[in-house]
């Protein structure tokens, strides 16, 4: 178990003052029994919102909705949290082969948040594309187990794509990132999700934090300076969901802290909002994820 002290600050600045705005934020670490425990967490929003409600969305994520009534030139979100993350046990491959995975999916007669059915088809940010499917098929033959396929596809995405914080933006499409073989965690994740769905493996998007500095003797992970994202994949009813970080080519383990899960970025975007302003805006994001002494 590792205990983390997490700080996140996101600031949006508007060129011309916004007269009103409404935003939904998914920024707080998730409470996940058995995986992750939130010891304490707070969200501060400035300026003071006129309305503030909190709810849980379809996928079980905590959502804060804030509305600003008066004119404002900037808004800031600040998270402070202390979270315990469990060590993931070794993964034993008890997953079915890809050929029979469809049968297991069909057998899942449920539509709760963790049902594989939500994660099989194309979604807004992760469409199914023939070229991406062919890429996945090359990495994982039909005879492979679902779990082996996840590892193979994740490793292939990690090997083929170049991490480049300047190459893409939050609005870059999956196809674009795939064709150019570059991007950040969001792009890596969308490509892997589309690839897995293309070969019949249910796959979703996880947003979260990554430990800023590596444990002694280990390399620093990419994407630790900002919020991070990785992939969840369903490997049959027995093994269930596994989480893989294609940006770093590793399973999501005790260095990964989950905020939200969904089909793709659109379901879990940290801040999604609408505002009345005529001008453009800029944003900055700062993340610090530090293991606390006494933990681990």
């Amino acid at each position, binding site marked *: 178990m590792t205990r983390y002290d997490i700080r996140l600050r996101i600031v949006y600045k508007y060129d011309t003052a916004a007269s009103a705005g*409404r*935003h*939904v934020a998914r920024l707080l670490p998730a409470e996940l029994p058995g995986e992750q425990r939130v010891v304490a967490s707070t969200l501060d929003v400035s300026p003071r919102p006129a*309305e503030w*409600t909190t*709810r849980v*969305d*379809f*996928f079980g994520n905590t959502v804060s*909705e804030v*509305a600003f*009534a008066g004119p404002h030139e900037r808004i800031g979100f600040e998270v402070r949290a202390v979270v315990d993350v469990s060590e993931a046990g070794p993964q034993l491959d008890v997953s079915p082969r890809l050929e029979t995975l469809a049968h297991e*999916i*069909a057998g*899942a*007669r*449920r*539509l709760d948040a963790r*049902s594989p*059915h*939500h994660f*099989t*088809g194309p979604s*807004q940010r992760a469409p199914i594309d023939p070229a991406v499917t062919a890429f996945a098929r090359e990495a994982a033959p039909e005879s492979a187990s679902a779990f082996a396929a996840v590892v193979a596809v994740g490793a292939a995405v990690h090997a083929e794509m170049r991490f480049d914080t300047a190459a893409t933006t939050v609005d870059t499409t999956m196809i674009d990132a795939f064709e150019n073989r570059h991007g950040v965690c969001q792009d890596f994740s969308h490509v892997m999700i589309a690839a897995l769905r293309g070969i019949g493996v249910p796959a979703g998007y996880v947003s979260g934090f990554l430990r800023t500095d590596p444990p002694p003797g280990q390399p620093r992970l990419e994407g630790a300076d900002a919020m991070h994202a990785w992939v969840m994949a369903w490997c049959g009813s027995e093994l269930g969901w596994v989480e893989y970080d294609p940006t770093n080519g590793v399973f999501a383990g005790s260095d990964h802290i989950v905020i939200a899960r969904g089909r793709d970025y*659109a379901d879990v975007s940290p801040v*999604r*909002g*609408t505002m009345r302003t005529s001008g453009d805006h800029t944003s900055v994001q700062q993340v610090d994820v530090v293991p606390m002494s006494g933990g681990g």
Partner: protein
Amino acid sequence: MDDRLARLLAGYPAAGPVPDELMTPAGGIRPVWAPFIAAIAAMSPAERAARHARGDQYLADAGVFYRQYGTPDASERAWPLSHMPLLIDEEEWAGFTAGLKQRADLLEAVCADLYGENRLVADGHLPAALVAGNPEWLRPLVGVTPRGGRFLHFVAFDIGRGPTGEWWVLGDRTQAPSGAGFALENRIATTRVYGDRFGEANVHRLAGFFRAFRDSLIGLREGQGNRVGIYTPGPMNETYYEHAYIARYLGFQLLEGDDLIVRDGELLVRTIAGPKPVNVLWRRVDASWADPLELAEGSTLGTPGMLGAVRAGRITMVNALGSGVLETRALLAFLPRISEVLTGAPLAVPNIATWWCGQKAERDYVKANADAMTIGDAFETRMLFDAADVAVPGDAARPSEALGIGDWLDASGASLVGQETVTLSTTPAFDGGRLVPRPMSLRVFLARTPDGWEVMPGGFARIGRSASPQLSMQQGGSAADVWIVSKGPVRGETMLAPSQTQFVREQPSQLPSRAADSFYWLGRYVERAEHTLRLARAYHVRLAETGAAADPLLALIHEEMERFGSEPGEGLPRGAAQALAAAANATAAIRDRFAVDGWNALNDLSRTVRQLEKVTLVGDDMARALGVLLRKLSGFSGLVHENMYRFLGWRFLSIGRSLERALALTGLLALTADPDAPEGALDLAVEVADAVMTHRRRYSVATSRATVLDLLMLDPLNPRAVVYQLDAIAEHIGHLPGADALRPATPPQRAILKMRTEVALHTPDSLDTEGLRAIEAEIAALSGHLAAAYLT
């Protein structure tokens, strides 16, 4: 069969491969049609043509249109009325519409399950993939029970008569069914055609249905004083005409997403008097667009926070957001079984046989019978005029010819359905002077009332253009009225309450800011067009006299016209055409609040403009053509002034007109009353201001700087004077919300008072060009005050 009847039906096949509505297989006329067909046969061809023209004229006058997609300008098309109604016997009607009520209840139960417990999936009656992969199953609304507990309040079914004479449901319309308003217009137009016969024909009236539904909507409100709105995507939607028509017919506000805001979970309309609650929305916007915060990102048709208001139970949506999931084509494959499970009874009216290809057995069946199938998108939720609306043989959705049907089904089975290709019954339609059989499908509307589902006794029939079963109106089909014929006389119905009851004068509705903005700009654009046209006419009159474009006075007009985006030499001034087009746009956005006559007058103007744009005239000819346009403009203004009810929209229109006129006049005077202006400039000002006669009477001298400034700036009795227009603006502003004699003046009130006083204190001598330009700037600034106070 007498001769005339035989001529009318010459070539009408007695027995075709499919049932016919008019003819029995034996070749006789069905009893329900007999008296009506005999009456039509008795008419001379000329009489029939005259009657058809009456119906078409009504539709043209009423401005009925639908928007055709796929053309470069998504143009408005005249309504294609079939001049032959469809007649159905009331007993037959009562029989199968009882089955449709059962179906509506079943769909309500399915919807409640899909957004609630999901027993149908858990028990294996519905594949989970069909729900999870459905774009209309809206996850943010899962677990949300609508206020009042009901998902469905107004539904429609597309039905057709199959080969054995039974009625079949072809599709369920539960999201935001369109067509009810068009059914009304079809009825009115058809009544124009057969007005005398209509009374004799014992046809059930439609008004009772609409009255019952209107009362039901009003009954859905919680709290007195709360309003019901019709929620529209706006003028670019294909059935916007219908939204505006229904809003006017039922007396509800027509609202766009931009009219609405959410505050503390409550849905409010932005009105000129501030935000006002709205409590029930009859929704014509597809759910995915309703809230950019939680549904389709970047939607400009929706309102951020709308879903919050739904979750908080502060608004009733008709129908509930998410009910579109029921329209899914693949659901038809499972409804027969679900009906047995949920109600213990089979479907009273069967639906078209459907197989979902996500299951192996069903997929194999579709493969084996592909010739008799239509294969298409399982999640398709079709709209009224979509090309794919009614099943046609083939596999239109297949990605490429090269892909075999079998491979295609194996690869994409879960997103495909096969449907039995049905042949629909035919009904008579006019083709030249005789009747021919054409395939037909029927849309039937059901409204939930406190007493249960009520069926509109009539509907909306789509008639194919040719004998092929292609029915889509986008491809040239037509629409027919549906007569449910009673054995005996029927009761007359109207929307109005019986006149014996005490009448109540209803409060005028709160004017949404967006509508006020449209009225305001309509006024400004029409006035701007008029000013530009007058300038152009003055130019061409002088050009005809002098024949020399180099004349300094012509150069001055040129300069003034350029301010309004026009050049005088080019024929019809571009600026005027643009202003009239902008006026038409503004009117389109307030169609529900605008009288049909005014709309027609504006359309007539636009037609004249388009004609003039095609020809090039100069000098005298052009001056005359501009005179015609100016007369039509005066006609429009007169209509507005004489006929329009003095509600707040009219005040904004009037303010816009006065402000634009004051602005244009001041600018014109700054130019023409300048000491350096060329000879004849003052006469020009008087002419463009349409004050030649007045000047002659008031001063009995030739124009001078003093008389012209006195008449056109300072005379409070001259409607063509700036001060008169400022008085008019002040008067209107005094009637707007927030203006109250007992309270401090509003910012627009203060601005107009200051300006009015300044102008009134002037004499012609004290008004120099600089002063005129300063006044002009202040008038322009007033527009900003108004916008800030009322229009945003």
